[in-house]
């Protein structure tokens, strides 16, 4: 079982690689203010998260996640 902080570290690493942004600025990052977070990168993020954590998101989690914190919540929910 992974803690929230462990999940945050992995999610941040993934987001900084995919979005090509500095990991220190990720905690507050939201889709609407991150130009590289396009709708098609959005699905790429979920592909990577499912692979990294070996989980399956439900349809709504993917469709409505709008920020780094939403992603962390979605991962924790899927892990639980």
């Amino acid at each position, binding site marked *: 079982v992974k803690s929230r902080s462990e999940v945050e570290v992995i999610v941040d*690493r*993934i987001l900084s*690689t*995919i979005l090509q942004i500095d990991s220190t600025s990720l905690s507050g990052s939201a889709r609407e203010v991150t130009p590289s977070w396009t*709708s*098609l990168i*959005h*699905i*790429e993020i*979920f*592909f*990577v998260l*499912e*692979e*990294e954590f070996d989980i*399956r*998101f*439900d*349809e*709504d989690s*993917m*469709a409505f996640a709008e920020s780094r914190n939403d992603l962390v919540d979605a991962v924790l929910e899927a892990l639980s």
Partner: protein
Amino acid sequence: MTSQDSALNLSIKIDDHYWLESQSKVLLGALSRIEVTELARQTNHVENTDHQTLRIWRNFAIEPIESWIKAIGNYWNLDYELQFMGYDDSFSFLGVDNFNDRTIEVLFIDRDRYRMDPDEFNDWLSGVELRIGQLSKKQVICIVINDQINYRINSEPVGAVINTGKQTLFDSRYEKTSGSRLTAIAYSAIARDLAGAWAPSIFAPPKKLLVVDLDFTLHDGILGELQNEVVVSNEFLSLQKELLVAKARGFLLAIISKNDLGDVLKLIETHPGYLLKENDFVAIEASWDAKHEAMQRILQLTRIHHESVVFIDDNPVELLQMKSIFPGMSVVSAKEGPEVSMQTLQFVPGYRRAKTDGLADIRKGDLISNEARRSLIDNGLKSYYSAASPVLKVLVSNEHCLDRLVDLGKRSNQFNLLIRRMEKSSYQEDNAVFVGLGLIDRFSDSGVIGGMVVSRSPQETRCVVEEMFLSCRVLGRGLETALLCQGMLAAIDCLGASDIEVSWVIAERNQPALDWLGSCILSEVPTENGTLSISRQTVSSLSIPPEGVICEISK
């Protein structure tokens, strides 16, 4: 190990080893997506890259293929750029006119978006493919998604990916987010097939020769005096079957093994599990020489450029040494077993082709006959002409040889003056004639081994060579000049011209064509692109075949 081998070992860098070690991971989809993202952004392995644009026409989201395509491209030094067009269910291609040689048109069609019945859909799809094919004057790749992933090139099905227990291609959970039901596995499978196989089948020099090691590559165990130490398990048998399939598709096969020749021949002929036999190979190089020396001998025998070769071996040092001597050669590691090497082979650019050429037997017959020819030629060309009675064949605008000519024109690299890779429609233009060139002698019928397209110039008395090529398989018989000039002469007469304009380009691999120009047409081998006008009279005098050689011209 020779001192040359030691020097080669030193020249192999750590990143070369990493490149080889990661081969199956990259090509068989075993990288994580985050690794793919990172690899896609890396600079290429060497600076010499081949730039290709894939223009994507689609009616659904396909962008997740991009990182995989770039990663595979980086692996093979192919610089892929993807140009995504807007969603369009009609595939009308309106307003687009910037078609060029460096762009391959790729259609992605989700079948579920159409209510047509199967026949209606197929007719519509063929029309779409025809339209973009006519606009681009190139082969078109079409990927249709229904309950599987189907690949077509120029309307012909060439392959498919199906849903299996191991790989789920579709998942409706993704549809709301991406507009497509494709899974990550499906995107990576499409990217690997497109970047490693189908796109290169259009632009990359085709592979022609597969050279394989024996121990731990074609069989398990070490061949020595005791054959019973050699085991051909089902996995190795599958690889042997794949090589036979490749042979049937037109590939030549050869062996390079550090073993005694007698042991190798005995193994192949008598081992009950061995599917491949001696006559499946154009060359069996079994010796204790360095493998690159054996490869050099095979290249000389087959007259195949090293870029058209795939070398399969389980020893990374042998593979990297070969690559350091022949940088353009593709190498496949057999270290992880025959199943992996067989799958990896599928993603070597130039290995898979949309069509088989059906010419393997002709090519092999020619090579086998070369031994007999060589012994005559060693006594002088005159003795070859008198004993072998060569016949030059000139086929003027003969539709029967057109497909073969178009194919040969696209494949010929070494003896090719202009390398325009013209499509069939350009051969058939009203103001042009195409000429097929063939060669027969007592030993073999080499079939159509060269050709040219000649058009009428706006200056009525002049015609222009648009394309001219010859297979290197037939060089060395002293007949190139007579054959090519007979072809030009036939074209000049057909177009009613009095002189012909011959142009050439300096390309990476067409030195044999430039050498020919330097020895027969120009006073020296050209070092820059150029054009020369030659009178009919000069062409006619150069076209006279040597004594003992006859020429047949037909339409």
